[in-house]
């Protein structure tokens, strides 16, 4: 069943249909929040709040757009608000630490993932966002453009800058091509 049909059923009060949308998008949205917040608990709360807000405001959803783009925006705003609140109350060094992972968990993770995670943490939010959308969520340039309300050309140039910056950061961490 496509998203549009599920949204229509949700608007008739069908919570099971909303359950389908949750099942479909909880993983990419949780991962998007996780990459931005770097804290599983905060990412969980941001994702949950985003879905609840989507449910509350479903009547305002413009059905000419993709449902994912719309709920992604809600998740993004929720994550950025949380990140802003946290930045105001935590010293810079704390923000570079992954609060969601203990040393034991980090050791269990794939080494490349941990390394990439640390490098990504040093990128500006805007650059990290396009990388997450492209490489974690596998969105096309056009899909990213719709999700973050930017022209495709701008998305492409931002991705380029982000990849160059990521390469520089990886270089400073001793990673060689």
């Amino acid at each position: 069943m496509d998203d549009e049909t599920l949204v229509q059923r949700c608007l008739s009060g069908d919570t099971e249909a909303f359950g389908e949308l949750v099942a479909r998008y909880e993983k990419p949205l949780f991962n998007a929040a996780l990459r931005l917040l770097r804290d599983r608990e905060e990412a969980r709360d941001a994702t949950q709040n985003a879905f609840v807000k989507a449910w509350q405001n479903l009547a305002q959803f413009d059905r000419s757009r993709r449902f994912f783009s719309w709920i992604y925006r809600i998740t993004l705003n929720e994550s950025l608000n949380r990140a802003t609140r946290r930045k105001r109350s935590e010293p810079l060094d704390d923000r570079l630490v992954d609060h969601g992972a203990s040393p034991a968990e980090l050791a269990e993770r794939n080494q490349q993932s941990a390394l990439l995670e640390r490098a990504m943490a040093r990128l500006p939010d805007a650059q990290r966002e396009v990388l997450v959308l492209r490489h974690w969520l596998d969105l096309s340039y056009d899909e990213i453009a719709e999700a973050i309300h930017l022209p495709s050309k701008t998305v492409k140039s931002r991705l380029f800058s982000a990849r160059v910056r990521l390469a520089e950061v990886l270089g400073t961490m001793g990673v060689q091509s």
Partner: protein
Amino acid sequence: MNPDAIDDLIQTVLDGDASPSDVTRLEQMIATDPFVRQRHAELQLAFAALAQGAKLEDPPADLSANILAEIRRQQPAGARTAAARPVSRPAFSWLRIALPLAACAAAAVVLLWSGRPNTIRPAAEGTTGTIAAAPLGSLTLGPGDEAASIRWRKTNGATFALDLEAGTSAVSVTIEPQDVRLESPAGARALAPGATETILGTVTGEQPSVRVTLTWADGRSATREVKLSGLLR
């Protein structure tokens, strides 16, 4: 070829979107131009790191259940929100026409009787109430419909309120404060199914948080840390 065009070509090739002729052209440039070779190597490093390290993590197992529990909690029986209209009942579909007609007729009688057909009163005229502060955050903790809801909001200055609401089962709630002082006594408090309780507190340090532990009658428990850093704004 200008540097921007070279960058664009390299990125297109690494994205896998380039034509075979563009790939060949880039390979020739890499072989002959040190700048292109260096640029390509940099970007290839980023692409390789992303290809190997960008992996989706599974969300918490209870996330979807908690989301659905929360929206069902916000949609109590009889609620009428835009996103939560009940499914129509075909057997009584004639009522959808008859009831509004009856309502219009009744309204017309009332207006004519009052003799003031042009008077429109604000809906809130003559009413009193309290406007609660918008919550700074919320979460649900526990499985499915048994999940308890926890909301936190700023009340006044450095004080805050934690609003607890039990799910469909009785639950014992223990709150361990850090950098906050709770006004109610420490220790577990029991909430009956669907019961609510508000706990007031004051921020005393720079990393305010509370660790909330729920324990159900059958011994299951769940713990979450609620960061209250938003209260410092």
